[in-house]
């Protein structure tokens, strides 16, 4: 079965990215397919490369990145939501002449259409809200 997962909460103020990661691991373990991960609203903060949780706390952004890369998942971060919240890739940083870029490898910035596209192509859309 094809799953699309949407994550709308940030690691520091919701459990959404953590719940979604647990769920995604179980999806893969059962032999189902994740056709799209979509990070929207505050969920875009999951994709920042410059968060560094204290050593005695789980490093969720890193865990997500490892999982995405290990399973070669299509991980999309909504570009409008990300720009609003200071998550940008190199191309956007250059476009808007920002001093830095911080999107983790493994993620791609793209439009909100990718959420709809994911919802329509998957058998199930599971949303993890804030």
């Amino acid at each position, binding site marked *: 079965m094809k799953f699309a997962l949407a994550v709308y909460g940030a690691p520091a103020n919701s*459990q*959404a990215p953590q719940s979604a990661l647990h769920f995604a*691991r*179980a999806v893969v373990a059962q032999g189902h397919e994740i056709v799209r991960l979509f990070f929207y609203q505050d969920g875009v903060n999951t994709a920042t490369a410059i968060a560094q949780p204290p050593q005695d706390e789980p490093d969720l952004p890193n865990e997500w990145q490892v999982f995405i890369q290990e399973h070669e998942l299509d991980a999309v971060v909504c570009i409008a939501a990300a720009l609003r919240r200071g998550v940008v890739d190199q191309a956007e940083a250059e476009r808007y002449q920002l001093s830095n870029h911080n999107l983790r490898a493994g993620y791609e910035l793209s439009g909100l259409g990718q959420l709809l596209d994911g919802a329509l192509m998957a058998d199930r859309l*599971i949303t993890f809200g804030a």
Partner: protein
Amino acid sequence: MKTLHTVNKSGQPMALCLRAVATGDSVLLIEDGVYELLSSGKKIEALPDDCSLYVLDVDARARGVSLPEHIKVIGYDDFVALAVDHDNVLSWF
């Protein structure tokens, strides 16, 4: 047509879920939704008899919420299986 409803808080998300729930649907309490099991109002008592109620084990345990016997306690593997078994998933948050 069966829907799995996930509920991640016991306030508005639980109330809206109860309004959207239909005969044969299932409700899964996750994250802060597990506090619904403690709440004095017990909105979940309004759940129709033919709906199943589940709670995610890790979230209940993390919060020290003890589980009544009639509740089905499940893990993420079962969560995925429930999503597969239902036609649709609605997420109330």
